[in-house]
C-alpha cells in the first residue's frame, strides 16, 4: 500500500529499515537472551539522527512529528520490539518536554535528546496505581526553591538508563488528580535511584526498573507546565505516544508475517512447500490484511495528531487497541505457520509472540483504551444531542 510519503519521510523509513536489517536483526536474539541494554544500537540511532525526527528544528531536530516517529518505530520493531521500545520510550519521555516545556527546558534537553546523546523516560505507574493512575502516591513537596520527591515508580521503561525522567507526582494531596504535577528529574540527582531490573516475558532488550525517590531534591525550574497539570501532561503525552505503541505492534506483526511467508516457501511437507496448502495460505492472507489495516489506522492517527486536530484521544486509542490486538494475533499465527519450529527459541517468531503481548498492556491496557473510545463516543453523542 502506498502512504504517499514525501521524500524526507522515505529517507527516514529507508534509513530505519537499513539499521533494523543490518544492525538490529543480527543481534535481536542475543539481546533477548542477555537482557542487556542496547546502548550500541542507541548510539547508531543517535548518530543517524533518528532520535531527532520528531523534535522541532530549532532544538536540533528534524522538525517532523508523530508520523515520522511512527515510521521509525515500525521499522525498528520489525527487527526487535525490545530495542525499538528503548527508542519509543525515549520519545514518550521527550514528548512532554516538547508539549509543555518552556524555552529554557527545551534548550537544555531537546538538542541532546535529538542526537541520542541522552535518552528519556516517562514515569507514571506505581505499585498500587496502574490503570487507576489517579491513585499515585509519589509526592513532591515544594521547599524553598526545590521540590523534594518521595515515593516509588514501578516498571519504568528506560528506567536507570535515561538521563532525563518525566515524573508525575502529587504536589497537592488535598486536590487528588488535580493536585498532580510533572517534574523533570535528571539521572544522578541525589536521592534518586533506579531499582532492580525486571526479568520480563518479552521486549527483553528494553530496561524496566523501579525509580526510587528518597528526599530527592529537584530545582523548582524542573516543573513542566504548571502545578496541578500533571495528569494533563500525562494524558496529552499518551495521546501522542499511543500511535507509537501501535507502530511498534505493526512492526512486530510485519516482522512475523515476513518470516512466516518466507518459511512457508521453504518448509516442505508431502513433497511440496507448505505455502501450497490453502490452510496456510488463508492464514497468511488474513495476517497480511490485518497488518495492513493496523498500519493504515496507525498512520492515520499520527497524521490526525500532526495535523493539529484537537481531540485525538479516540483515534489514538483506536490505533493502539487495534494494532496491538493485531500483533498478538498475527504473531500467534506466525508461530502456527512455523509449527513446532515456531515454538523453538532458535526461530525468530517465538520471541515476536512474546514481544507482542506487552503492546496490549502498557500505555493503558486495551480495556482502558476501549473505555477511552466508548467515553468519547458517548460524549460526542451527548454533544450532538442524539
Amino acid at each position: 500500500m502506498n502512504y504517499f510519503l514525501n521524500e524526507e519521510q522515505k529517507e527516514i523509513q529507508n534509513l530505519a529499515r537499513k539499521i533494523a536489517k543490518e544492525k538490529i536483526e543480527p543481534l535481536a536474539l542475543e539481546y533477548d537472551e542477555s537482557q542487556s541494554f542496547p546502548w550500541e544500537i542507541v548510539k547508531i540511532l543517535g548518530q543517524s539522527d533518528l532520535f531527532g525526527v520528531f523534535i522541532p528544528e530549532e532544538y536540533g531536530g528534524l522538525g517532523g512529528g508523530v508520523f515520522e516517529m511512527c515510521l521509525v518505530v515500525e521499522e525498528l520493531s520489525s527487527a526487535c520490539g525490545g530495542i525499538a521500545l528503548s527508542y519509543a520510550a525515549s520519545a514518550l519521555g521527550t514528548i512532554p518536554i516538547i508539549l509543555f516545556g518552556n524555552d529554557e527546558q527545551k534548550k537544555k534537553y531537546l538538542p541532546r535528546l535529538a542526537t541520542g546523546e541522552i535518552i528519556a523516560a516517562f514515569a507514571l505507574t506505581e505499585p498500587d496505581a496502574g490503570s487507576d493512575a489517579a491513585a499515585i502516591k509519589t509526592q513532591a513537596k515544594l521547599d524553598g526553591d526545590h521540590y523534594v520527591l518521595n515515593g516509588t515508580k514501578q516498571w519504568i521503561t528506560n528506567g536507570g538508563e535515561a538521563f532525563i525522567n518525566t515524573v508525575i507526582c502529587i504536589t497537592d494531596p488535598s486536590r487528588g488528580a488535580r493536585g498532580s504535577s510533572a517534574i523533570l528529574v535528571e539521572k544522578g540527582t541525589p536521592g534518586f535511584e533506579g531499582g532492580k531490573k525486571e526479568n520480563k516475558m518479552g521486549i527483553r532488550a528494553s530496561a524496566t526498573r523501579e525509580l526510587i525517590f528518597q528526599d530527592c531534591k529537584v530545582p523548582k525550574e524542573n516543573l513542566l507546565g504548571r502545578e496541578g497539570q500533571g495528569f494533563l501532561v500525562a494524558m496529552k503525552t499518551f495521546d501522542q505516544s499511543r500511535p507509537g505503541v501501535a507502530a511498534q505492534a505493526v512492526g512486530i506483526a510485519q516482522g512475523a508475517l515476513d518470516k512466516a511467508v518466507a518459511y512457508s516457501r521453504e518448509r516442505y511437507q508431502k513433497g511440496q512447500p507448505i505455502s501450497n496448502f490453502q490452510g496456510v495460505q488463508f492464514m497468511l492472507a488474513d495476517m497480511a490484511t490485518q497488518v495492513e489495516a493496523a498500519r493504515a489506522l496507525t498512520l492515520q492517527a499520527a497524521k490526525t495528531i500532526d495535523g493539529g486536530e484537537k481531540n485525538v484521544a479516540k483515534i489514538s486509542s483506536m490505533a493502539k487497541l487495534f494494532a496491538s490486538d493485531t500483533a498478538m494475533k498475527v504473531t500467534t499465527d506466525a508461530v502456527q505457520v512455523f509449527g513446532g519450529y515456531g515454538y523453538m527459541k532458535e526461530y525468530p517468531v517465538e520471541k515476536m509472540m512474546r514481544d507482542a503481548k506487552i503492546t496490549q498492556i502498557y500505555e493503558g491496557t486495551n480495556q482502558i483504551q476501549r473505555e477511552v473510545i466508548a467515553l468519547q463516543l458517548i460524549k460526542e453523542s451527548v454533544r450532538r444531542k442524539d
Partner: protein
Amino acid sequence: MKIIVCIKQVPDTTNVKINPETNTLVREGVESIINPFDMYAIEEAVRLKEKYEGTVTALSMGPPQVESALRESVSLGVDEIYLLSDRAFAGADTLATAYTLAAGINNLEGADVVLMGKQAIDGDTGQVGPGVAENLGLPHITDVRKIEEIDGNGYMTVQRLLEDGYVRLKVKLPAVLTVVKEINEPRMPSLKGKMRAKSKEMKVWTAADLDIDKERIGLSGSPTWVTKIFTPPKPKGGKIFQGETRDTVSELLDELVKGGIPIKRGGGK
C-alpha cells in the same frame, strides 16, 4: 589535515548473477553501490577528520551516474565531492585509471593522506591504489588494518595486515593508503547528512580540465585487454587421502611421483 578518498561505484555483486551461456554479468536490476572496501576508506577518512580536524574530499572517475555514490559519501561525512567524467576516460584499465585519478588529485592540489579501498569487488586487482601513489610520486602502504597515530613530525604509524598477523610501519605524509575491512565498522548514514548530500555541489572535471597526456587515458592508455570472462569449471575427480598425516603425506608423494612429477624423497624424519 586534507584527506582525499578515491571511491568507485560497482554493481552489488552479492546480487549479481552470471549468464551461463555468455559468461557475462546479468546487469539488469542490479543495484549500484559504493565499492564495499571504499566504505572503510570513507569511514577512516571521516574518523581522521574528526580526530585531527580537516576536510575529506571524495574523488571518483566514472560515468555521470556515479554522482549517486559521491552523494552517498556526503551522507557519511565527506565534505567535498569531485567526479572525473568524460567519454575519453571510458574503457580505462587499472593503469589508465590510476593515471587519471592521480591527475585529479593533482588538480585538487594534493592531500596529506589519500585513502582507498584495497581493491574493487568487480575487478579485484588491487592495483589502482599503488598505481595512484606511483603517479603522484608518493609512498604507499596497502592492506592497512589500523592507523595508530600521526605524530608531530608528520609521520603516520599504521598496521599492515599480513596473512598471519600484521607489521607496523611508519610512513612520512603525504602518503597513499589502501585499507582492509578490519580497519573499522563504517557508520550508518545520518538524515542530516542525507539532506546535505542532496544539496551538495558536485564538481565535474573532464579530460580538458586535467593536466594529462591524452594517450595515457581511457582505452588508448590501457594495455590490458579482456579477451574472455568465464567461471573456471569446477575441478572434477580428485582423490582424498585419509588417515594419519604421516601416512597420507607419504601416499600423496607416491601418487605424485607415479603421476610423473619428479619429487626427490628425502630421509623422512
